[in-house]
């Protein structure tokens, strides 16, 4: 159901699908693509539903191999349904199913996050993120019947990232150094929680009064809950405010306080470990998308040296714990 220029496209047909999902009369007013990855499209839809203005987000899988292991649209929808039912603030899931014109393509429809009626401060927002993550991490993945969520401990994460480097034929020694550090310094996995998987400031929607919605769950999996906190604190996601360690919005302690208030327990050393892994993931994601000779793509590649620098700053020789790695120094 891609927009103009692809298979369904026409407003009426998008409206028809949404109308069937809502059992209502729907008129589409506008479509705007907000995300285009190699494996999915995300479109914001403005519509009138039985005469009322509504906004939606439509996700659709695209055929083709995924360079990174994202959830399929239907899997993400099922997860968001489980989280919504558990009381997590996420976009309201409305419907999912095959594209009527392309049954091999899945669609999922959500209510778009409403713009905040009252602006929250960075501190309020970050505290709310901490609380929300603590709540997500407390949900048992077994109880939620989410068996398709894959376990991602440090070893699996590193194996995957190395595989991407190999597949893309990338010569990035600084990243290879960082991956080796991550392997040697990996904390022991003590349990698995549901992870957002890409929890940074771009994936939160402040809804006012110190509340946030966590959006875009396609990178979700099971792993060390500190990984989500680490991603949120990673320097590469601080939006030009390196002094505000939690997403460029507030202090690290604010995030920790929110997490503890939500019933979670913070392990600072683990958070900092996963921050470095978040840098590695962000760097490798830049060249894991299929080659697109676009201006934005070319400029994105220019972010790599800065990410590599951040990794090297954090992985100086004295930070290595090589106890679990076989060290083979060259004579």
């Amino acid at each position: 159901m891609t927009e103009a220029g692809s298979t369904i496209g026409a407003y009426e047909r998008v409206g028809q699908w949404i109308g069937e999902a809502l059992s209502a009369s729907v008129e589409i007013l506008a479509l705007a693509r907000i995300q285009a990855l190699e494996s999915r499209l995300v479109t914001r839809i403005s519509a009138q539903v039985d005469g009322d203005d509504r906004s939606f987000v439509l996700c659709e899988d695209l055929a083709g191999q995924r360079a990174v292991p994202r959830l399929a649209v239907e899997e993400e929808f099922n997860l968001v349904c489980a989280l919504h039912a558990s009381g997590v603030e996420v976009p309201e899931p409305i419907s999912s199913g095959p594209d009527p014109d392309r049954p091999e393509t899945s669609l999922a429809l959500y209510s778009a996050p409403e713009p905040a009626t009252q602006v929250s401060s960075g501190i309020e927002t970050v505290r709310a993120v901490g609380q929300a993550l603590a709540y997500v991490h407390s949900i048992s993945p077994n109880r939620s019947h989410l068996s398709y969520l894959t376990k991602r401990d440090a070893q699996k994460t590193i194996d995957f990232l190395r595989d991407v480097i190999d597949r893309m034929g990338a010569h990035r020694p600084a990243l290879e150094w960082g991956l080796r550090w991550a392997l040697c310094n990996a904390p022991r996995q003590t349990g698995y929680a549901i992870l957002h998987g890409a929890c940074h400031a771009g994936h939160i929607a402040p809804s006012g009064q110190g509340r946030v919605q966590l959006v875009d769950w396609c990178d979700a999996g099971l792993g060390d809950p500190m990984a989500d906190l680490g991603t949120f604190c990673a320097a590469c996601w601080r939006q030009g405010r390196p002094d505000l360690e939690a997403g460029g919005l507030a202090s690290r302690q604010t995030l920790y306080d929110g997490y503890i208030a939500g019933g979670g327990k913070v392990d600072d050393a683990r958070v900092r470990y996963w921050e470095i892994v978040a840098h590695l993931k962000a760097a490798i994601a830049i060249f894991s998308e299929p080659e697109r000779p676009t201006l934005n793509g070319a400029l994105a590649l220019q972010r790599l040296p800065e990410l590599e620098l951040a990794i090297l700053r954090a992985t100086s020789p004295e930070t290595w714990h090589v106890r679990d790695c076989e060290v083979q120094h060259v004579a």
Partner: protein
Amino acid sequence: MSRENQDLDLLAACRDALEEDVLPHLEGAPRQVAQRIEKALRIVCRKIALTETSRTVDQALADIAPEGLMQALRSGSCDARPEIHAALWTAASVDTAAAKPGALTRQERALAGLP
């Protein structure tokens, strides 16, 4: 004048024309695209200016493990070795000096032999 300097002058002239003659007449999305083009031109200018430094740094990295640095790093033979970390840091600093010079600390500029 060297070929690199001629290339640099050509790019600088393009960047100046874009900045002075084109950008002021643009608004909205076209202006944003033009600003990104200007940013790309600035990066390329800095890359050309750092060509010789980059060459030296790349050679130093290649000399560390003539059989292949990536494999050496993955195998563990470079684990925690200060001289390798320093060489990688220097290389990343030089690349950052071209891509986003403001991200470098004073120490990193000195490490990479940059003014």
